[in-house]
């Protein structure tokens, strides 16, 4: 408990100092990592606590991101204009699907509701039928693949492979200006904090225990009078909403949303951070997401040619030697440090 408090305070201080000490470029990168950390919290809930290995989290990230991007694009184009990509895709009139996204309230709601709703419906279908484990993992992966193909195929509606780029404004903030970038960073940090808090409360609640029970013995849970499908669907939906939020923040921070971010590989990469950090511990997942993405930046900058070796290799090593991730390592260190009890004396027989 004391440990937790101390590290929490340290983290908050570090995050608060970042805009002062980091260059806008590096701060932008950190803000991006924070987005991934928000997704990671959701994954840690669904996977670590609930045992649902979701390989399609990119879909929800994307839904949130596209919802936000649509709003920003419309805002930029003004009332009469069309978003740039529609112009070169030969679209002449704003598609009906786009119209409501001109409203900021609608767009903000959609950022959370659309991914939440999709996850809810999918969860209801899949979990009621007791699709789980590897089946669920692979289905969710297929979902990511299908989603990408759909997005790519609807160029006039979504910008196709290119996705949408070139955002200059975010609710009055100038994204080309360092101060605007700092403000967006702050928003990301706050959203991450809130996400973490919500997840933490959830894990500690009875629902959290129930979720673990579902993970370890879904069928047994039924005989305690609970419907595991409900438990899983709720959790899956929450994790999707978190991913959607993260996607929405990603758009102003990185300035692009495209199918390349949502497919199988990016979805897997989201998981990697969680696995490395420790999927059973929320803070571990956050730290892992940030660390892994930072490592990716670092490796790919300094070893542009061989960084896949480093990334893949590091990841394999962590899984092999620290199956519970960094959080597991920390925990066992803490155990060793704090166990005052002398080790049991071995008495030779």
């Amino acid at each position, binding site marked *: 408990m004391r440990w937790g408090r101390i590290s929490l305070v340290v983290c908050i201080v570090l995050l608060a100092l970042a805009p002062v000490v980091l260059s806008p470029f590096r701060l932008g990168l950190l803000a991006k990592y924070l987005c991934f950390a928000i997704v990671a919290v959701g994954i840690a809930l669904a996977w670590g606590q609930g045992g649902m290995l979701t390989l399609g989290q990119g879909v929800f990230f994307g839904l949130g991101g596209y919802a936000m991007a649509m709003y920003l694009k419309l805002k930029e184009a003004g009332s009469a204009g069309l978003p740039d990509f529609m112009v070169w895709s030969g679209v002449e009139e704003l598609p009906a699907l786009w119209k409501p996204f001109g409203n900021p309230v609608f767009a903000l709601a959609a950022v959370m509701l659309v991914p939440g709703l999709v996850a809810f419906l999918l969860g209801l279908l899949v979990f009621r039928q007791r699709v789980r484990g590897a089946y669920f993992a692979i289905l969710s992966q297929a979902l990511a693949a299908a989603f990408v193909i759909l997005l790519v195929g609807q160029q006039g509606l979504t910008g196709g492979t290119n996705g949408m780029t070139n955002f200059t404004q975010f609710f009055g903030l100038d994204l080309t200006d360092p101060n605007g970038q700092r403000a967006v960073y702050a928003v990301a940090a706050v959203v991450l904090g809130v996400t973490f808090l919500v997840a933490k409360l959830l894990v500690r609640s009875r629902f959290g225990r129930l979720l673990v029970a579902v993970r370890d013995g879904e069928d047994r849970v039924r005989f305690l009078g609970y419907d595991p499908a409900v438990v899983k669907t709720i959790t899956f939906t929450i994790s999707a909403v978190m991913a959607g939020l993260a996607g929405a923040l990603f758009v102003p921070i990185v300035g692009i949303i495209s199918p390349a971010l949502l497919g199988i590989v990016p979805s897997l990469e989201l998981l990697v951070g969680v696995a490395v950090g420790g999927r059973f511990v929320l803070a571990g997942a956050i730290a892992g997401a940030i660390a892994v993405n930072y490592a990716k930046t670092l490796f790919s900058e300094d070893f542009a040619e061989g960084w896949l070796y480093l990334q893949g290799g590091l990841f394999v090593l962590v899984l092999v030697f620290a199956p519970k991730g960094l959080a597991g390592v920390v925990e066992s260190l803490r155990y060793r440090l704090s166990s005052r009890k002398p080790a*049991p004396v*071995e*008495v*030779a*027989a």
Partner: protein
Amino acid sequence: MLSVSGVDAAYGRARVLFGVGLEVPAGSLVCVMGRNGVGKTTLLKTVMGTLTPTAGRITLDGRDITRMPTHQRVRAGMAYVPQGHVSFPQLTVWENLQVTLEATGHRDPAAVDEALDVFPALRQFFKRPAGFLSGGQRQQLAIARALITRPRLLLLDEPTEGIQPSVIDEIEGAIERLHREAGLTVLLVEQYLDFALRLADSFVVMDAGEVVHAGAVEELHDEEVRRMLAV
């Protein structure tokens, strides 16, 4: 035949056995008793090599087997019936038996028939996946599986659990036969005292991961020992 001395064992950080010592002379039938959770199953698993002792020594016929892989212990003549109706659920009853036979040294198909003579009911389920069997049927299969290896030393962890009374008689008869006629050595964990009393030569009582008493089976009638078991 089997000798366990000073064995400590743990699941991860949780130590369960503390300096356990035990002798199972060739041709004897030793019964391990004790309340739930004292470490009986853990002891058998350690003897079979599922758990590696953190201290102590296990020998079979004088040969140190403390670190021998499980399957080699089986080839060396040990067989084990784990607690709780364990089988290969998606293999049929026949495949469960066959796969065991194929892994033994002797590979004599007659061993299957011998084992099934004790549990004739199993024959009618040959084609049924073991996972579909009833609890008692699965337990019968588990014992049959162990017998097929034609062990010299048989370890049984509560073998009668879930089995109907008349079949328990059969098992008792079979073990007795093998024990008396073929000199089978048996290490038995059993709560069903009548069964133990009729078969065992000697017994040990465990408590909290230690052997607290060992003696000849006659002593089991002692009030003292009975109290020890009843705590």
